[in-house]
């Protein structure tokens, strides 16, 4: 390998490419950010240079090889896209019947003309994170990067280095935001390797309430790369419901972290519905920093063809008397691969923890595979912790029962597969979102079953 004069230590070609891109970014796009952000970015790129892209030799990436991503001709979307999208273009990504605000981001950049912000309660902030870094510098500085660590994961480090924009949602103490907020991320790549690094920050102060939907979709003619990080700080007694829907085009790449920090007596419900992208990797990490927290993490992944979808969960019971429940279902067709890795930590002293994790998988085809690894690491004795994982086919007894009532074999299979998905979707508390996702999945799963049955 040739040595360059770069101040950071030389790495493999894929790392070099990122360093070069960062140089260009600093000269160009990053200038408009305050100095402390520039500092933050530099620590991010330095960390990335030290870590490099993960390889399957790392335990956390054992089943997910990101070589197709690291070899992309990387083009960070430094500036807002010039692609002219109209309100009509975006309308099909909205949830019918969902009121409230919708913030639209194109390649990670906030696009006001496509967004609607409804009337907000006093003190609620909702808008572009980039803008807030000037207008609400103290608030952003106080929270940004405090929850999602860039130290141990290369993609988070890359996000810190390259993020251009994202959403800031701030709910002051005691305020209840009635209508859900929809964050819509549109990847609009016309060249392979266009990379968006959205960065979202959601802060719900003590006693507040909010529901947020993050959805990721694609337009354009090329496969893009989304590398998103969402940090969620839930204050004492606050209640946050977060629903993520990842439906990018089947050749796209999606890597994301949702990191939440849950204060005393708070409630956090998360749904991760992942159906798109060539490789989709979701790190969903939660730390309970106070007692009496209730946390529910739901997930549904559906993959076909050569898709790979990977959920890596860390639920960290750092304090006593918290409850966490995880329910993840996977449906895998084609030659797709499902990966689930669930880690529950119960720290010393976190007595009376109630932690439960369930991962169930259906394999629809001969070539589909699943690798699942539920883990418990427990350092306190007065705890109730269980996990279960299953891989299997549809219940033959149930199929027989339906057929004996006159339902055709195909229809019975479809029905049971859809029920397996609905089981998770039913937990979504935002009615229009639940309804629309349910319809979407009914039709997607119907198609999967038809493909299998020939």
């Amino acid at each position, binding site marked *: 390998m040739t040595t360059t004069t770069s101040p950071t230590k030389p790495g493999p070609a894929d790392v070099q490419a990122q360093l070069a891109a960062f140089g260009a970014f600093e000269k160009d796009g990053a200038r408009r950010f305050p100095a402390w952000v520039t500092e933050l970015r530099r620590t991010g790129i330095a960390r990335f240079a030290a870590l490099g892209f993960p390889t399957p030799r790392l*335990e956390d990436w054992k089943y997910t090889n990101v070589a197709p991503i690291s070899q992309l001709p990387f083009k960070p979307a430094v500036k807002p896209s010039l692609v002219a999208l109209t309100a009509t273009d975006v309308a099909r990504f909205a949830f019918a019947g969902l009121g409230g605000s919708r913030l639209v981001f194109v390649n990670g950049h906030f696009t006001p003309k496509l967004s609607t912000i409804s009337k907000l309660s006093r003190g609620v902030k909702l808008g572009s994170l980039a803008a807030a870094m000037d207008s609400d510098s103290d608030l952003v500085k106080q929270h940004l990067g405090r929850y999602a660590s860039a130290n141990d994961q290369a993609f988070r480090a890359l996000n810190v280095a390259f993020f251009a924009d994202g959403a800031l949602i701030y709910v002051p103490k005691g305020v209840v935001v009635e209508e859900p907020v929809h964050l819509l991320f549109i990847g609009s790549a016309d060249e392979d390797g266009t990379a968006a690094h959205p960065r979202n920050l959601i802060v719900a102060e003590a006693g507040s309430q909010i529901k947020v939907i993050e959805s990721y979709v694609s337009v354009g003619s090329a496969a893009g790369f989304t590398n998103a990080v969402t940090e969620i700080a839930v204050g004492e007694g606050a209640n946050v419901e977060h629903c993520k829907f990842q439906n990018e085009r089947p050749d796209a790449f999606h890597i994301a972290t949702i990191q939440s920090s849950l204060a005393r007596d708070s409630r956090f419900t998360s749904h991760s519905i992942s159906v798109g992208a060539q490789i989709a990797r979701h790190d969903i990490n939660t730390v309970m920093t106070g007692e009496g927290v209730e946390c529910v993490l739901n997930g549904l992944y559906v993959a076909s063809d050569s898709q790979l979808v990977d959920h890596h969960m860390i639920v960290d019971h750092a304090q006593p008397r918290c409850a966490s429940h995880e329910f993840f279902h996977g449906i895998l067709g084609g030659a797709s691969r499902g990966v689930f890795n669930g880690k529950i930590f119960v720290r*010393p*002293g976190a*007595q009376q923890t109630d932690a439960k994790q369930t991962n169930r*998988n259906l*394999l*629809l*085809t*001969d070539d*589909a*595979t*699943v*690798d*699942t*690894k*539920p*883990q*418990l*690491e*427990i*350092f*306190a*004795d*007065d*705890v*109730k*912790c*269980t*996990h*279960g*994982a*299953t*891989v*299997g*086919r549809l219940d033959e007894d149930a199929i027989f029962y339906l057929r004996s009532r006159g339902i055709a074999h195909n229809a019975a299979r479809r029905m049971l597969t859809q029920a397996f998905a609905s089981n998770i979707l039913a937990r979504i508390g935002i009615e229009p979102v639940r309804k629309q996702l349910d319809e979407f999945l009914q039709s997607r799963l119907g198609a999967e079953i038809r493909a299998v049955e020939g």
Partner: protein
Amino acid sequence: MSDSDKTIEQFVQSDYKYGFTTDVETDTAPPGLSEDIIRLISRKKNEPEFMLEWRLKAYRHWLTMEEPKWSNVHYPPIDYQSIVYYAAPKSRKPGPKSLADVDPAILEMYRKLGISLQEQERLAGVAVDAIMDSVSVGTTLKGQLAEKGIIFCSFTEAVHEHPELIRKWLGSVVPYTDNYFAALNAAVFSDGSFCYIPKGVRCPVELSTYFRINAINTGQFERTLIVAEEGAYVNYLEGCTAPMRDENQLHAAVVELVALDNAQIKYSTVQNWYPGDKDGKGGIYNFVTKRGKCAGVNSKISWTQVETGSAITWKYPSCILLGDNSIGEFYSVALTNNCQQADTGTKMIHIGKNTRSTIVSKGISAGRGNNSYRGLVKVSKGATNARNFSQCDSLLIGDKCGAHTFPYIEVHNKTATVEHEASTSKVGEDQIFYLNQRGLSTQDAVSMIVNGFSKEVFKQLPMEFAVEAQKLLGVSLEGSVG
């Protein structure tokens, strides 16, 4: 800390009951590892050339390997050059031919352990091969077994008497390249047991081996090989103890099992190596590779283990389910108290069609003990209709211990059914109070609860072993209550 916590705390302060040393002259190699030492071991054992070649290949391979770091156990670096790789009790005659030739002091030691060889031979009908410091000291009941064509002897003897079998099967399940400790074992193993059950023979008695480390600063590297030919059946038991020493001692054994068509092997272990003292000083590092190959159709290999000893346990008795309809089972109780660490579990590799596996793992953590279950269930692409059920339960006694579960499930066939369940619970104050109210002391109550928790595994053991295992759990948890 509440009163009941205090009681439990006192209760789990245990003493090791098997820590006597035996004054037997040993024939010991100088410490350290080199090709010369390996040649010395091979020469001492008067081995044929193919064995020496194999050992040297293993040693050269070992030199290229690194000690594994992935397990959830922590220990200071091992100095492989300070270990004595060969220590044989000096017997009065070369190679004991019968119990009468065995040093009476050794027999006395086995008596203290509660395994009188003579008695076993006469009464229990259990054939015992006792290995002390890696060298076999006598195999009982050989005559009766020979009538059926069963070979049960020390590994050294097998190398001499049945070289064709050793050549055929040695390393066929655990090759010397397998892992760091298996490579080390292949290079330096000094003895072990060999068992061969011919076609169609059901071994009429339980075969049993007792291992004991006696000499100071000695590593023990024994190797067990069991081959069950078509339709054969054998039930094999293994027990382990070691004296109390301040230094940590390394035990790196290898066990290979081969079951051909319709054959069954049941392998049970009660492991009670010296666990070190209350502060974690001393104790055995038990780094063992155990693997069985269900090579034939309808074959079955069943592992049962009760692991109460060792400072560190690192072992994963596994099954390769190659033959169609073959069955693998793993039943385990692992107890860690004081500063003990255990990282144990199994691998079930489903390759053949209609293969089935069952995993039942019970981890008990007390004191500052850390207990990890690590397991892999892999269903390969061709393993149509494979089924696995795994149940991993952890029981915690006191608030300074840890329980960890790391199951890996890899499924590459849609017709597979894999289920994994795990739970963690503590010995409940309400359970202890309930038993107290019925008149049982806290000590008896905890012992009863722990034994109840382990029941499913004990059920798999032969009666005498189950009783011994229950007592061991009691002893390992025993303390100064009342």
